[in-house]
C-alpha cells in the first residue's frame, strides 16, 4: 500500500473515531458554550462602548484592542473596521484553543501504547502513517470547529455593523480562519509530540499542559527584560496578535505557526519512529 493511501485509510478511521467519541462531543459543547458566553460578554462590552458616542467609542475600542492584542498602530487601524466583538471573541477563542486541542487529543498515541493496541496497527502500517493519521484527524476536527466559530462570529458581526461590505467580512473571516487554522495545527502537532514521547495518557497530559504553561511563561517573562526579550519569539503565543492583521505581521505569524507545526511534528515522528511500543 502506498504511503499516501495508508495515511488516508488511517486518517479516515481516526476521524470516524474522533467524531464518534463522547469526549469530542463534550468538548464541542463546552467550546460552544464558552464561545457563546464570550460572545455575550463581548456584545455587552461593544454595546457599552458604542453607547458613548462615535469618538468615545473609537477611543474605548482602541484601548481594548491595545489591551488584548498590543498597541501596534496598524493593528488598531485594521481592526477598527470590524465590530469590536469579533476580534475580542475570536482572540479569546484562539487563546483557549490550545487547551481544547490538548483535551481532545492528549492520549492519541500514549493511550494506545499503554494498552498495547497500537501493536495491531504498527504491524501493518508505517509509524509515520499512524502518527500522521492521528494528527490529521485531530486537525480536521479542530479546524472545522474553528470554521464554525468564525462563521458564527462574522454572521453576528454582519448583523451588528452592516455598513461593512459582505466581501470585507468574507476577507476578514477567511484571514482569521487561516491564521487560526495554522495556530491550531501547531498546537495539534505539539499534542502529537507530547503523546508520542510518553507511555501513558496521564504523562502526556501533564507534559502537554506543562509545555503550554512554559510557552506562556516564555512570552510573559522573556518580554520583561531586554536581554531575554529575543526568547519570547520561541513561544507560539507571541505570534497570536499577527493573526488579526494583514501584511508582514500576518505573514510572520503564519510562517511561525507553519514552522512550529513542522518542528513539533518532526519531533513526534522522530520519537515515535524509533521508540519501543
Amino acid at each position, binding site marked *: *500500500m502506498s504511503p499516501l493511501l495508508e495515511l488516508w485509510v488511517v486518517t479516515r*478511521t481516526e476521524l470516524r473515531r474522533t467524531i464518534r467519541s463522547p469526549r469530542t462531543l463534550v468538548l464541542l459543547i463546552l467550546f460552544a458554550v464558552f464561545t457563546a458566553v464570550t460572545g455575550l460578554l463581548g456584545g455587552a462590552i461593544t454595546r457599552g462602548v458604542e453607547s458613548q458616542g462615535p469618538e468615545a467609542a473609537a477611543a474605548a475600542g482602541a484601548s481594548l484592542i491595545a489591551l488584548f492584542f498590543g498597541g501596534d498602530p496598524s493593528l488598531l487601524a485594521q481592526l477598527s473596521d470590524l465590530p469590536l466583538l469579533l476580534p475580542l471573541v475570536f482572540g479569546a477563542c484562539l487563546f483557549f484553543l490550545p487547551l481544547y486541542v490538548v483535551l481532545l487529543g492528549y492520549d492519541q498515541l500514549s493511550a494506545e501504547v499503554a*494498552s498495547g493496541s497500537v501493536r495491531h496497527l504498527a504491524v501493518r502500517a508505517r509509524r509515520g502513517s499512524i502518527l500522521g493519521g492521528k494528527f490529521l484527524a485531530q486537525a480536521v476536527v479542530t479546524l472545522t470547529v474553528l470554521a464554525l466559530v468564525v462563521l458564527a462570529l462574522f454572521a453576528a458581526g454582519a448583523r451588528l455593523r452592516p455598513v461593512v461590505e459582505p466581501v470585507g467580512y468574507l476577507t476578514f473571516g477567511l484571514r482569521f480562519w487561516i491564521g487560526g487554522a495554522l495556530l491550531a495545527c501547531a498546537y495539534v502537532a505539539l499534542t502529537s509530540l507530547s503523546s508520542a514521547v510518553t507511555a501513558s495518557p496521564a504523562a502526556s497530559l501533564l507534559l502537554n499542559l506543562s509545555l503550554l504553561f512554559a510557552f506562556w511563561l516564555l512570552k510573559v517573562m522573556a518580554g520583561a527584560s531586554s536581554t531575554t526579550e529575543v526568547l519570547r519569539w520561541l513561544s507560539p503565543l507571541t505570534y497570536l496578535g499577527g493573526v488579526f492583521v494583514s501584511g508582514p505581521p500576518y505573514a510572520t505569524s503564519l510562517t511561525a505557526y507553519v514552522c512550529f507545526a513542522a518542528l513539533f511534528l518532526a519531533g513526534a515522528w522522530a520519537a515515535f519512529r524509533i521508540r519501543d511500543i
Partner: protein
Amino acid sequence: MEDALSFERVSKRYGSTVALDGVSFRVRSGSCHGLVGPNGAGKTTTFGLAAGFLRAGGGTVQVLGREPHDRGPSRPRFGVLPQDAELPGYLDVGALLTYWARLSGEVRPEAAARIALDRVQLPEAWDASPRALSHGMAKRVALAQSLLGEPALLLLDEPTAGLDPRAAAEVRGLLSGLRGERTVVISSHNLSELERLCDAVTVLDHGKVVQDGSMAEVTRRGVEFSIQVVRGDVPLPELRALSGVASVDLSPRGLLSLRLSPDAPPSEDVIAAALEALLARGVRVTALTQGSSLEQRVLDVTARP
C-alpha cells in the same frame, strides 16, 4: 531453504536490565517453531523484536529476509498475535478487522475479515464491541487479525493463554491446520501443546538461548527412552550388554532409562530387544516413552542452581 526468521547475536536492554544477551537462532521456512522458557526469559522481547515493535540494542534480526521494521511496499508479510495487547474499543469487531485487513493489503477487506473471524469460529462477534468480549473471545479476535493479509509468517505469543479447554483445543486445531501452509512461531508456557505442534524449539533463559534444535533433538527422541516397570527382576547387566545401549538406570519408582550410543542401530530395534529381555524375565511393563518430555527438558536446561 531460506530462514523465515533469524536472530544473530541480538541483545536488548531495558535500562540496566538485560532482556536479551547475544541471542542467535533460526526458524526454517514452513516449520512450526516453539519459543519457550521461564517467566522473564526474554520470549516476549524476542517477539517484540521480530515484529518490529522493539529496537535491538545490537545484533541483527531478519524476518523473511528483511528488516522487521520495514513497512514499505515489499515489506515482509507476517502476522502477529501480541501478548496482552488490548483490542481498541473505538470500532466494532467487524469494522476493526476490516480496517486492519485494508491496511494489510487485502483487496476485499470485509470479505477477508469475515473469513478470518470464521477461522477462529467467532462469526457472531462481527457486530460486537471489543470491550464486550470475554477474554477468550478477545484472544480469538486477536488471533483472527494475525491471519489477515495472508502472512507467510505468524508470530503467536501465548495463543491459548486464558482460553477454556474447548477454545484452546479449537485454536490448537487451527494452528495444526496452518502447519506446512506457513511458518508459525509460538511462544507458550503450555509445553505439551508445543511438543505436539512444533517441529523445532528454542529454549531461552535469562535472555540467552540455552537449547535450540529440532523437537526430536531437544527431547532426545531416538536417543533415549524410558520404560515404566512395575514388577519383576530387571536384568540390568543384560540390558547394558545390548547392542547400541550406552547406559541404563533404574529409579526407585521403577522407571528404567536407556540411553543409546551414537553408533546404535535404529532405536526401534533396541527398544524391541530391551522389551524382549524384560518380558523374558517376567517383568511387567506399563509404559514406554521415547526421549524426555519437552517440559522435563526445559526444566533440566533452565534448572536454578
